[in-house]
């Protein structure tokens, strides 16, 4: 099975979305870096194989698995039941909050302030779906909404002023706000009532492989690797409530 295949091949093809800092991005030497990339490396080390990090867009995550280009995707994949019909999810390994980021002039206090603003998000993400669902429920219509091919395009769009606000994850927003390009931007309200619980994904029928990955995730917490990676990319220890949510969701 897949586990044997990887071990025999001696290389782990690990898919990561590399325009989603700090989970995945390119450093100034154009090398992959980020929380997810560290997880890939940890996984490779655990397996005793080399790691080949593949750069994916959101939309490519599943095709890359189905097509066998990747053995595993550590790419902040939200664990919806619809998707679970197609791919196998591990236990959650991270939880995001969906948040708004906008220019400070827009002065967004609540999620409902988005009503007449131009809002964007990356195509095919859960927060896109969540925003659209909320917008429809509120009767805002779709005209003010723009979807972007990738997370980076969304930030570029916000930066250039194509849209007034975008929806992204709290982690990504926090990272962006620390760079001077986004000095004039502020983080806004969270998307109401939604925790984005994400897992590692692999082929649905590779049960043994998914088992292995599950244990790997547990050990990441237990062995302190998670804390180390979190420190490296978020500058603090893993918050206790994140650990708790991960345990609860297991």
């Amino acid at each position, binding site marked *: 099975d897949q586990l044997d295949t990887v071990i025999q091949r001696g290389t782990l093809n690990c898919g990561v979305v590399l325009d989603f800092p700090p989970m995945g991005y390119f450093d100034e030497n154009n090398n992959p870096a980020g929380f997810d990339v560290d997880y890939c490396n940890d996984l490779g080390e655990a397996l005793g194989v080399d790691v080949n990090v593949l750069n994916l867009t959101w939309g490519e995550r599943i095709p890359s698995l189905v097509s066998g280009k990747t053995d595993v995707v550590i790419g902040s994949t939200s664990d919806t039941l619809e998707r679970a*019909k197609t791919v196998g999810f591990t236990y959650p390994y991270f939880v995001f909050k969906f948040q708004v980021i906008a220019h400070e002039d827009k002065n967004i206090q609540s999620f409902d302030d988005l009503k007449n603003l131009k809002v964007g998000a990356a195509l095919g993400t859960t927060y896109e779906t969540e925003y659209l669902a909320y917008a429809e429920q509120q009767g805002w219509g779709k005209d003010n909404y723009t979807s*972007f*091919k990738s997370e980076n395009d969304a930030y570029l769009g916000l930066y250039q002023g194509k849209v007034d606000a975008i929806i992204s994850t709290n982690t990504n927003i926090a990272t962006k706000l620390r760079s001077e390009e986004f000095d004039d931007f502020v983080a806004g309200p969270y998307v109401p009532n939604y925790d984005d619980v994400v897992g590692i994904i692999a082929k649905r029928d590779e049960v043994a492989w998914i088992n292995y990955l599950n244990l790997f995730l547990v050990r990441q917490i237990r062995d302190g690797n998670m804390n180390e990676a979190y420190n490296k990319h978020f500058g603090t220890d893993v918050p206790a409530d994140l650990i708790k949510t991960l345990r609860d969701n297991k």
Partner: protein
Amino acid sequence: MDYEFHWNVVFQNMPQLLNGAFVTLHVSVLAMLLGIVIAILLAIAKMNNTKFFSQVATVWVEIARNTPALFQIYMAYFGLGAFGIHLSPYAAVLSALVFINAGYLTETFRGGFQSIPSTQYSASKSLGMTSFQAYWHIILPQMLRRIYHPMTNQFVWSILMSSLGILVGMSELSGTTQRLQSLSFRTLEFFIVAAVMYFIITKLVLFGSSLLARRLFKGEI
């Protein structure tokens, strides 16, 4: 092959796909119409003796013909964005397609015009027609016949290239397909259906165009 096909989810989302197909058709028709209008102006400008006009036309034509469509679309979207000009994905794709269509059609029009033997013009003049009458009754109708086929091809090309809308998050057929597949992760199913829909659209367009040609051009060249 151990892939299990799930077609249900595709059929549930058929209305959205059809809507995407409509947007595809919409943007390509518009891109074609605007492209034709601009191409006529550019072709006239190119054959004009005023250097400025013919140079502007030449630059347009050469850039449109010698750079990838994908580049044009990025340029219209993020390139112009750097100047604070913000086009919606729809407008970006539309303007890129118009830009390219105009570039290619300019050459088509010019070629079509030059392929009408000048003797047709002298023959018309010798019958006492004014220049305008000669163009309107004799040159243009014949030219239209010759450029009709290349124009149809350009239209089909526009339809196919509008699929690049997927890259700027436009909700045409490809973009819609991409969104739907990322929700359910049924990549193969959705893209197969999209491929079939593109095939049908282009076949319908070609069929319609040959029907129209038969009505328009009873005489042969």
